[in-house]
């Protein structure tokens, strides 16, 4: 019962935020933008700190970079292709990759911009939308029930941005175990559709 109420509250909130991005796109509405700012930036900041604990300036830079893109790209956001949370996640991920590349000890000329397409021009058609929201709910419910040893690894990979090798080194687990735990977790979350 509590879980149901929680889920409803979350989807109401998301619907409201989606309306905000619409107002930003169409009317360049700054108060709508401020609402998006209030909701998402503490998460974006936490996402940055997950990778670099204590790096407050880096976290603020990421906030600024992501929210700048939200303002500039609002018109490109297409709710039929991805929900707003996922769009923001991909923006934050892309900005973090770009930041790391520019500040890496070992330089690379590879520009991530064209590698990680932003969601506006990829993704499923409208007929898959219903399925998509169902999948997302099962992912959310599944994450809560994941064994700690599996969720710990997803956290390392997704939030801390660790490679499989780094995860293996930090947790003192064989590389094969790391990979199989990722795979098991995804299977539990029903991410792995059979081909």
């Amino acid at each position, binding site marked *: 019962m509590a879980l149901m109420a929680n889920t409803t509250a979350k989807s109401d909130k998301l619907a409201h935020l989606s309306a905000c991005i619409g107002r930003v796109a169409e009317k360049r509405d700054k108060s709508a933008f401020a609402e998006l700012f209030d909701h998402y930036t503490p998460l974006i900041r936490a996402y940055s700190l997950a990778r670099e604990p204590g790096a407050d300036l880096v976290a603020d830079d990421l906030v600024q970079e992501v929210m700048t893109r939200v303002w*500039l790209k609002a018109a490109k956001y297409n709710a039929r292709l991805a929900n707003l949370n996922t769009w923001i996640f991909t923006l934050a991920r892309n900005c973090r990759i770009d930041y790391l590349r520019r500040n890496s000890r070992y330089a690379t000329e590879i520009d991530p911009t064209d590698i990680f397409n932003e969601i506006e021009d990829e993704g499923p058609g409208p007929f898959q939308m219903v399925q998509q929201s169902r999948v997302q709910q099962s992912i959310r419910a599944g994450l809560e029930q994941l064994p700690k040893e599996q969720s710990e690894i997803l956290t390392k990979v997704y939030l801390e941005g660790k490679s499989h090798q780094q995860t293996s080194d930090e947790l003192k687990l064989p590389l094969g175990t790391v990979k199989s735990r990722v795979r098991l977790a995804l299977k539990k979350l029903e991410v792995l559709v059979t081909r």
Partner: protein
Amino acid sequence: MDKSNNHPDDELLAAYSAGSLPLSQALCISAHLEHCQSCGQKLQQLNHVGSELMQQLKPSKVSDELKNKLLGMLDSLPQDIAQEQPREIDSRVPRCLHQFIDKSYDDLDWKRVSADIHSAELCRDSNGARVELLKIKPGGSATTHTHMGDEYTVILEGSFSDESGLYGQGDFLVRDENDQHTPVATQDRECICLAVTEGPIQFTGFLHRLLNPFIRRGYA
């Protein structure tokens, strides 16, 4: 639409979605995604996983100062960042490689590797991996080098076959140093592949380079 039969592993696709993959490997995944709808759908779901994990983070308060600063900047942001300049580029070139190629594969600085193979180095990754295109003549042997780490290959044009089967456009292959396969391009046309070869970063040291010119070159 799904032309491809060989896909990246799920955990590799997850690392791509998480943004924790070296950019050279991410290039290969991206090139594969242009040809593979089923991996594209998986990626959508993997992005949802990242999104949900992010929602579960303990929020970290952002200062009013930063908020006011950004709100004050909005009107002066350059609007053209969001606009992409359309480019005249050969439609065969995957989007992720546009950064290295001016108009078509022909513009690249192709170097002869063997009687059958030409290669064009595109760049190096920060982990030392070499990113290059390989062009194999029709019917030519695609066995290039005795490499030391994993090698990621995506077929961009043409096809090749080996003991285990036929590989075509979009196919994604990972081979390790123990791989004994001897791929051969099919007779009908030349084959172009994107290849990423892991190179141990310590081999770029001056002394090592001096002592191991052949290792560094990578082709034996």
